[in-house]
């Protein structure tokens, strides 16, 4: 609200002002503004826009990384559409969105809602730090640890055997039907802390009067959640959704360490293919084309997510 407030007045003032001089002054101010932005723009150009341009450029060539390249046109892009393995990779990353974004957000919302019922907890910050821990640990460490858990003689199977569920045991990361969900669950474990920290912070900002009012009006736990907590967390949910969806789409290290895209190609992902083609099989052009498609995809999904969030109130 504080942000939106000054805007109408500024607009009014400008509309009232005589048309000639302020326009010129505004132009001058603008150019000075660009001057200030110039260092940032230069850095952005040198380290982001130019490499991005090169990425697009290389994607239009057949190139092995060392010898002369040949013009490919859009062949690298049509290959993505034609190659069933690459298509499957993109499909897998959408399955991962379920595990990286949807599950953690739903679970974290539930947990956060429950925590709000206990109005004052001792050591909340301790638990918050604890639940945020997966985000702090290096992904390679996480993946290695989970590989040991999922191994044929790992902790998970041992636990299942001791409670008499021997029939369920399997090499979780080596089984065609469970490999992708197993990788996905690592993502759920990773992202749930991030979501929970975001949501508990968000709930802290919801005015306590709203909860009181809801309770006075006779709202139960469920009603209170949907009427007060959920609308109050819209902003945080959008942020969480953006971060976790991007994390899902660009997943690389998890698969690189845990499965190498296997068994078969059951867990191959676009980001993994980019690395594999660029550095392993010498298909740099194709790798760049996949990277471009992935970038565009992430951009579109991010824009869609921000569109989901209704504009801030004030009306």
């Amino acid at each position: 609200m504080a942000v939106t407030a000054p805007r109408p007045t500024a607009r009014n003032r400008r509309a009232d002002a005589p048309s000639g001089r302020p326009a010129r002054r505004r132009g001058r101010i603008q150019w000075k503004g660009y001057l200030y932005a110039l260092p940032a723009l230069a850095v952005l150009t040198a380290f982001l826009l130019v490499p991005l341009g090169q990425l697009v450029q290389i994607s239009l060539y057949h190139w092995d990384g060392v010898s002369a390249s040949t013009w490919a046109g859009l062949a690298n892009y049509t290959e993505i559409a034609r190659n069933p393995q690459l298509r499957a990779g993109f499909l897998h990353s959408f399955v991962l969105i379920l595990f990286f974004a949807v599950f953690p957000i739903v679970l974290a919302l539930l947990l956060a809602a429950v925590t709000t019922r206990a109005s004052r907890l001792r050591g909340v910050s301790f638990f918050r730090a604890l639940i945020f821990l997966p985000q702090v640990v290096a992904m390679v460490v996480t993946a290695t640890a989970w590989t040991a858990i999922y191994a044929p003689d790992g902790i998970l199977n041992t636990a299942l055997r001791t409670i008499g569920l021997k029939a369920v045991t399997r090499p979780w990361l080596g089984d065609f039907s469970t490999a992708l969900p197993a990788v996905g669950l690592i993502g759920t474990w990773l992202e749930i802390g991030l979501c929970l920290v975001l949501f508990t912070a968000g709930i802290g900002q919801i005015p306590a009067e709203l909860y009181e009012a809801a309770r006075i009006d006779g709202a139960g736990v469920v009603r209170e959640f949907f009427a007060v907590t959920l609308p109050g967390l819209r902003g945080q949910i959008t942020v969480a959704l953006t971060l976790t969806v991007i994390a899902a789409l660009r997943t690389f290290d998890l698969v690189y360490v845990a499965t190498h895209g296997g068994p078969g190609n059951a867990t191959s992902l676009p980001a993994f293919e980019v690395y594999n083609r660029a550095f392993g099989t010498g298909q740099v052009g194709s790798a760049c084309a996949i990277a471009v498609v992935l970038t565009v995809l992430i951009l579109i999904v991010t824009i869609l997510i921000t569109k989901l969030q209704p504009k801030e109130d004030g009306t």
Partner: protein
Amino acid sequence: MSVRTRPHRHRRIAAALTVACLTAAAAACAPGPSGGSSADSTDNSAKPVSTDPAKAGKVTLTEWDQNTDPGTNASTAALNKAFMQKYPNVTIKRVSRSFSDLKTTLKLALSSANPPDVVQANQGYPDMGAFVKAGLLQPVDRYAKTYGWNTSFPSQLLDLNRFSADGKTWKTGNLYGVSQTGEIVGIYYNKAKLQSLGLSVPTTLQEFETALAKAKASGLQPISYGDADKSPGIHIFGVIQAATAGKDGVRKLVFNTGGAKWTDPGTLKAATTLRSWADKGYLGSGFNGQSEDQAVASFAQGKALFLVDGTWQAAVVEPKMKQNVGFTALSPAAGQPPLTQGGEGLAWAVTSKSKHPDVAAAYINFLVDQQGMQVSADHGNLPALPPADHKPAADSVYAGVLDEWKAVSQKDGLLPYLDYTTPTFYDTLTAGVQELTAGQLTPAKFTDQLQSDYASFQQSK
């Protein structure tokens, strides 16, 4: 109105900037050098070779290797030190990286303006072939003549380091390097367990299958197998294929000499055999989720009768099993010399832009002459050319490894690694083996996939 124009101008400027950047990038020349650079390397070939690095003045030689495991690391360090002692005017700068790190960084290093002088290049199209095509390595034929590599190395080892000058045909044309170590894939066996089952050391696929069945029947895990890392699949499939498709069949496929298909009966038989092993439980359960390290450790603990793996695992299992482990390779038929896949260590090659190619070649010769091979053997490695007086303890696994290597390398029994076939074959084959053994692919469908990768590579050549 004026309010509305502002963001528009912003956007226009941003768009203009982006377009400018993109066109600037696109206007620059195509990625990679413009053709014809491979001609650079040919000038040197006529020059006389100076074999005495002492006369070269002050020289700094940069070498990149992948010798990070204890044995090769120690021997490389020892040989570098000895070379610098012999030639005080030469300083060797060593850069040592793990195989996969070397693979990903060597391309960039080689295409830089100031590449290392000596590098270890991996055989096959994706690495050495690509380097040769780009003119980054220089032929070493004149050095091979001078130093006698032509005669000291068996031709099947030299051929693996040959490429046509355009990098398109492997195994013929110029020599681009020589290797110091050898390696083959074979079968490790648990001596005590083999004896308790009343079995002798298997020498053919048939005997091996008999032993597998007997072990399974007695409740002992026949093979310790873990394919989560994907590469062990190539080894076990190759061991079977060597027996079912034969020497010529496999070589025709991998070396692209024509006249063979991956769908041929020999390869199909290998796929069917491997699938039946998986179905019968010879490979254990959950092998696609077990890492190679776990499988090797499990064999070393005595939990299985056999381990199908390379000679590089000898140093891993020996400390645990001592004299209780042996190594063998299968023959096509009883009494014939063994036939198995394997090769040699990465080739030591000289880069095109090296300022001291003669010193570089003298250094390589220092690594691969009899003295160099001896130092390599002394540190527990398997030298490509074992010195005559090199004799590991007779009952150790190293003796078995050395015997099989001698038999395979000297009696034309070396088959190429299957992933050499095409640049993408490693991915196709390893994923395929996982699918085949898990019952996701029929043997016929599996060979179809291999053939389609092979066919599309031949088309693109």
